[in-house]
């Protein structure tokens, strides 16, 4: 069972809040949820929307076509009328608003909307858009938002403007009615969401009114729930993983979509920590510093790591570009530092609030020169959590920078899942080779790993970005260079030997068609595997999680003798497949790619795979999503 719901509205109008509350209420009824957020690089006024899938099983994707569209402004109708299958909730007072009057809508979109409507012999008003949908079997639910709000305002004897922010909750409430779930769940969700009593009151009443405006259609039943469930977005869960993993220092410079992670850590800076000797718990503080730029951010984290403190920074493309030099220093000096790399629409400033997977090869090669670098990419929220801990371990074990890739598509999306999935009592903390004795920092060893002392614990420790001898002092000697360089590089071989390949790639299914992917497309793929099977298409998902060191043998073996290898990525060049080809010599036979900055959705992916398999189309370019 799956149901899709979308709510849209201008930025600053509370779309997020209502989407969270709506989702939260549905989750309380025992449903799993995946919700994706789309918004402009803008503070107020531009269109944003949340697209949610509700399911009785765990779900990790959204659908382009939604059952219900909850709108309370004109732009949402224009941007999405063509994506709805069942219901459109809209504001009757806006019926005569024309597309060309909506100034916040980009003219490219307006033009397309007008074309579509005119192509159907319609005008260009909200009413026409709704009409267009109606003709295609969509039911419409007109709402007189201002009337409802006026009621609320009157009841509390406040001006209309005071209750303005409940508008979005009305839209949520109307759609909630359609589901047929207990009203109480929604009410309690509201109560838990607002700290401010007055807001609870306004919203409760607005919702009461909204609920009256539609009736149960979908008949959702309350499901039984075992254990606890959590609702988490990618930024937060990454922060949680890092904290559990022993992160004690995070530097950052604000950037979308990375900074929410750091802001969360800062807000939760004081944590319970168990004393390993006494077993007592006491509060300890994490240092979080907002730096002046990303050059400072990465180098502060490196400096901190030298004292033996688990240290990280988080950024996205533009900031990561600025970190290349520092990463190279960390590689040269064998410093365990984690960079959480939130990928967004690139190149350059690109689409700052949209998603993308176009920085993978940059992440792998960032920083001049050769040094071991570990790069891993998570595919869903639960993976992010454990990978965040893993990244901190890998950094210390191999004494080298680790890049943890998380896409905006995961960062700003949330999912509801069983809490036990992020039980971390079985996640280990491995600190690698540590010493508290003075001595040469860069001892030549067989596996490349040298015992590491900490600044402040051991004296006469030396570091330099220049080539150095075992003591960390500069030397240009040719023989030392040869040996020291090799020692560093060997760590990547050691890591490659030690880290089980099974942990570096997720292989699901056993079909003869390989879906080669990484990161967020995992969700859509997993969510359509059953449907594909029903269509007679047996696939196997090969989701590469670690690109360096690359799980060459397992991937090679798995890709061999496949009927088709379809690369599925959110970029133009199929970079994950390129890296795979570099290591295995195996190239994809087909491509399903998307670079619009929007997440790959399960329905468009299903169609695309069918096209590839049945019509043997070489390459499908996806573009769903406003």
């Amino acid at each position, binding site marked *: 069972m799956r149901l899709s719901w979308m709510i849209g509205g201008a930025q600053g109008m509370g779309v997020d809040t209502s989407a969270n509350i709506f989702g939260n209420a549905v989750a309380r009824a025992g449903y799993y949820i995946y919700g994706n957020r789309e918004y402009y690089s803008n503070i107020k006024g531009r269109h944003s929307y949340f697209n949610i899938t509700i399911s009785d099983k765990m779900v990790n994707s959204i659908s382009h076509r939604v059952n219900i569209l909850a709108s309370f402004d004109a732009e949402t109708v224009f941007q999405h009328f063509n994506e709805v299958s069942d219901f459109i909730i809209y504001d009757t007072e806006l019926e005569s608003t024309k597309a060309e009057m909506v100034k916040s809508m980009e003219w490219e979109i307006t033009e397309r909307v007008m074309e579509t409507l005119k192509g159907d012999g319609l005008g260009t008003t909200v009413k026409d858009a709704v009409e267009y949908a109606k003709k295609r079997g969509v039911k419409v639910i007109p709402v007189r938002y201002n009337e409802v709000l006026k009621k609320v305002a009157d009841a509390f004897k406040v001006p209309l403007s005071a209750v303005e922010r409940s508008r979005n909750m009305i839209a949520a409430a109307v759609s909630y009615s359609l589901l047929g779930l207990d009203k109480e769940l929604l009410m309690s969700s509201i109560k838990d969401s607002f700290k401010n009593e007055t807001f609870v009151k306004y919203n409760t009443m607005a919702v009461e009114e909204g609920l009256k405006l539609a009736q149960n259609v979908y008949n959702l039943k309350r499901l039984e729930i075992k254990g606890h469930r959590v609702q988490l977005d990618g930024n937060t869960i990454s922060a949680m993983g890092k904290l559990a993993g022993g992160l004690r220092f995070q530097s950052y410079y604000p950037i979308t979509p990375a900074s929410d992670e750091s802001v969360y850590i800062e807000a939760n800076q004081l*944590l319970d920590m168990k004393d390993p000797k006494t077993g007592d718990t006491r509060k300890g503080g994490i*240092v979080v510093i907002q730096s002046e730029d990303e050059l400072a951010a990465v180098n*502060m984290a490196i400096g*901190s790591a030298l004292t033996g403190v688990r240290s990280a920074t988080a950024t996205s493309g533009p900031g990561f570009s600025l970190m290349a*030099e*520092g990463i190279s220093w960390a590689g040269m000096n064998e410093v365990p530092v984690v960079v959480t790399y939130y990928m967004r629409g690139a190149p350059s400033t690109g689409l700052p609030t949209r998603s993308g997977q176009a920085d993978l090869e940059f992440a792998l090669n960032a920083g001049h020169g050769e040094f071991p670098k570990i790069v891993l990419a998570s595919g869903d929220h639960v993976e992010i959590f454990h990978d965040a*801990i893993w990244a901190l371990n890998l950094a210390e074990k191999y004494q080298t920078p680790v890049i943890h890739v998380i896409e905006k598509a995961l960062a700003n999306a949330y999912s509801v899942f069983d809490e036990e999935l992020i039980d971390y009592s079985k996640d280990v*903390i491995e*600190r690698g080779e540590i010493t508290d004795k003075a001595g040469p920092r860069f001892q030549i060893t067989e596996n490349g790993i040298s015992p590491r002392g900490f600044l402040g614990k051991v004296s006469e420790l030396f570091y330099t*970005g220049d080539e150095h001898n075992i003591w960390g002092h500069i030397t240009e000697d040719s023989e030392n260079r040869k040996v020291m360089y090799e020692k560093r590089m060997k760590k990547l071989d050691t890591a490659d030997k030690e880290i089980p390949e099974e942990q570096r790639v997720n292989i699901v299914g056993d079909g003869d068609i390989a879906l080669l992917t990484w990161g967020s497309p995992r969700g859509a793929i997993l969510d359509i595997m059953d449907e594909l099977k029903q269509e007679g298409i047996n696939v196997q998902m090969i989701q590469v999680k670690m690109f360096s060191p690359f799980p060459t043998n397992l991937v090679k073996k798995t890709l061999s003798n496949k009927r088709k290898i379809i690369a599925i990525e959110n970029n133009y060049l199929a970079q994950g497949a390129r890296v795979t080809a570099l290591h295995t010599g195996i190239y994809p036979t087909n491509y399903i790619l998307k670079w619009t900055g929007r997440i790959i959705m399960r329905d468009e992916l299903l169609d695309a795979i069918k096209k590839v398999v049945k019509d043997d189309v070489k390459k499908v370019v996806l573009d769903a999503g406003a």
Partner: protein
Amino acid sequence: MQALKKEPVFNDWCPGCGDFGIIRAEEMAVKELGLKPEEVVLVSGIGCSGKIPHFFSLPVSGVHTLHGRALAFATGVKLANPSLKVIVNVGDGDGLGIGAGHFVNTGRRNIDLTLIVHDNGVYGLTKGQASPTLRRGEKPKSLPRPNINDAVNVLALAISSGYTFVARSYSYDVLFTKEIIKAAIKHKGLAVIDILQPCPTYNDINTKEWYDKRLYKLNWDPVVKDPSERDAKMAQALIKSQEWGEKIPIGIFYQDETIPTYEERILQNVPNYMDYSPAVQEIVAEKTPTTDISKLVKAKRVV
């Protein structure tokens, strides 16, 4: 290759380089203050000056970082382990050219660090190009034509950026420099010392002879004892910082300990920061995490 004991490092500065005076003064200052070697971390940038940790004769630790980034590394070291004494040595190109952004923004934090600028007017290690402290129209022997950039006023910049100890010294006056460094290290907050450092190889303008006849020592009270004095003391320091030419003042221009350090500001949010800093927190107990995030998880429960 695997030398068991540490061989002495060859100091490869040019004969007569002003850097020798700085390193001597810095060593003496560390020694006289009785700092424990493992508690002292020298952080440096890239340039002739940047090699200083490698040449230091005391068993301190040293981090020779990136060109322009020493203050960022130092900030990380210090905040992760606030019990350390962190001294940062940068070149003038390093600290005020490529590093100017960190110079300014570190000022805003007043971290308890000591920053020493090796002010030689040139980019020594890259063969004598003009540095940000070389004045316009000057043509040291390494420049093909007179410098067309204006010089930055290091002291005024520091004061405008929030440094709470701002001084100037002269590298050939080792004892005076030592005293200034000691004062800077003892200062609670962010200290900067602009050390006039002749580069006999490339800068034949700001030579020993040139300085010797111009330098004089400040004889005033630079200390803000109460916030109400701040504006006046700052103004006098800013005005004094403009003096350059026939007479050049050295000494402490400005000192203000009435402003809380960054560490103190962290304390407001993390009450046990000084004795339970990141560097002393244990993160692992028998292979498993010591950190308990269950409250955070609970806060995200829907059911």
